[in-house]
């Protein structure tokens, strides 16, 4: 059995990618299962999905704790302890990261498995599809290639899964073209089963719940959600172009999360630690004073504390 775990941010298509891989494996004659984590999955929030396939019936269910392949749709998740991307990964686990950085650059400050591959899938999608999200077909194709599936079943799986989501046929065609490029850009890897040293995952401390006799999960703090940063959700950040703002307040008014404040000169100040990158401010700015800039990895980019 091959176990592939997908990590992404809600909206990037990790769940659909896992479905594409499952369907492609099924069409290749394997038994297969795929399932996402069910819960409070949100656009931008860390999500995970799991695909298992093999020649024998699969009795295992639920989350994959010891993956053979981990596909990461967003590099910022590597450092998000809540995402638990490396949990249960062994030294020989194959790690694929959607990132413009090289594997060595990622290794500089992270303990990663031996086989790490990176491709700037978001960059490819932006360039060829003109989209900033939903890279499911591309990730599914990459994952299918890594585990050694043929292109034809992958093509069928992408078509079927995107049709199910009511994606328009011309968009599916475009996705197939770009997915094939991604498919061809990686090589099948030898998957080593069992044993091996487990790479330590970023530690996540589970809260200790008191028994119901002591009361419910009560929050005694006021407005402490600001401790939780959501800046890592962005693919694009709104940036103010000096001199173009007319101080109209519309960005401040329409921001759902309230992360834009107007300073004394009526100019917007964006709280990048919390801005989720929805781009409402960029869309609504009447003078185009706010523009969307793609988040750069490393450098100025937001990183989890």
């Amino acid at each position, binding site marked *: 059995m091959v176990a592939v775990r997908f990590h992404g941010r809600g909206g990037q298509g990790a769940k659909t990618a896992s479905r594409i891989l499952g369907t492609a494996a099924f069409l290749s004659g394997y038994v297969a299962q795929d399932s996402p984590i069910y819960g*409070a999955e949100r*656009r931008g929030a860390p999500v995970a999905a799991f695909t298992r396939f093999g020649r024998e019936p699969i009795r295992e269910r639920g989350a994959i704790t010891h993956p053979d392949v981990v596909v990461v749709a967003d590099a910022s998740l590597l450092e998000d302890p809540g995402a638990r991307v490396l949990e249960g990964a062994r030294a020989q686990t194959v790690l694929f990261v959607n990132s413009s950085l090289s594997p060595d650059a990622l290794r500089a400050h992270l303990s990663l498995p031996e086989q790490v591959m990176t491709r700037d899938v978001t960059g490819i999608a932006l360039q060829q599809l003109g989209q900033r999200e939903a890279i499911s077909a591309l990730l599914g194709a990459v994952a299918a290639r890594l585990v050694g599936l043929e292109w034809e079943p992958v093509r069928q799986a992408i078509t079927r899964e995107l049709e199910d989501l009511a994606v328009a046929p011309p968009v599916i065609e475009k996705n197939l073209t770009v997915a094939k490029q991604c498919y061809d850009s990686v090589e099948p890897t030898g998957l080593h089963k069992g044993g091996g040293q487990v790479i330590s995952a970023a530690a996540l401390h589970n809260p200790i719940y008191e028994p119901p006799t002591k009361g419910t999960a009560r929050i005694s703090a006021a*407005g*402490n959600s600001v401790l939780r940063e959501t800046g890592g959700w962005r693919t694009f950040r709104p940036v103010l172009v000096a001199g173009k703002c007319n101080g109209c*307040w519309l960005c401040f008014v*329409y921001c759902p999360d*309230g992360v834009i404040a107007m300073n004394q000169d009526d100019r917007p100040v964006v709280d990048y630690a919390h801005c989720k990158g*929805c781009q*409402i401010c960029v*869309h609504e700015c009447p003078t185009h004073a706010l523009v969307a800039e793609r988040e750069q990895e490393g450098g100025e980019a937001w990183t989890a504390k």
Partner: protein
Amino acid sequence: MWQRETFKKIKQIPREEHVLPGTALCAGCGGLEALRLAAKVLGDHVVYVNAAGCFTMLAAYPYTSFKGSWLYTTMGSAPAGAQGVRDALDVLIAKGKLPKSEDVKVVVLGGDGSTYDMALSSTSGALHRKLDFYYICYDNEAYGNTGMQLSPATPYAARTATSPCSVQHPAATAQEKKNIFEIWRAHRPPYIATVAPRYPLDLEEKFARAAAFTGPKMFLALSACPTGWVYDPGETPEVAKLAVETGLWPLKEAINGVVTHTYIPKRKPVEAYLKLQGRFRHLFEPTVHTDAIRHIQERVDAYWQQVTKEQA
């Protein structure tokens, strides 16, 4: 002619934030946009009674985005929870254990699944008892928190997870959106309003006006939903704008049952609104469902003809 009295200019919108960031709600959430603006008028002296739904994520243990209090209830019982909170406050004030000056507003937050469906009887009870509270329904026209399943608020021809396009129903949802405004109005609460966050002054004005009334103050907030309606999160205000400008989402209020439309749109064709959203894409691709689109247009036209007739 309806006129705003308190909020005339955009710069009258208070700078202070009462719903803080760091929540796990979707980027571009139209419901959060509405709540944030509403809270600028409601302030911090509030007990929010939250029916299970997307807004559960506003105070997911151990974090809360509110400076005021928040109580969590099941989907069907938020107005009953509000009754309990209101009664407790009244008893404490009557006994002199809580100064009148420290009284707080009780505000129910419910999604459309809760409001139109599960909590309808509980809401009816609270309206009947003339409970002094606010009710904010963030209406994204489906059970969004669980993955966009059909709710009684889902409009005709919208595709949801449980009303897909099928041979029997090629235009997806076959039912019409339930008219919750009229259901509420039949109970004659002192104040009801529909709002859309794309029209912030209209929204702020309505919350300011509602404060003068004792009893149920009901709000129906259009909550454009990038995740469920399938459009780019940056287009949330644009979608809300088109909902209002096509006449699909009338902005109105009802004071003691008397309805006033607070904005009369010029009424663009409904296609402008439908085309922007993936949940209606099947109406245009691969073949155009002319009948379904005409049906939606006719219902909007009929609504506004009735409005014009009543005004005359």
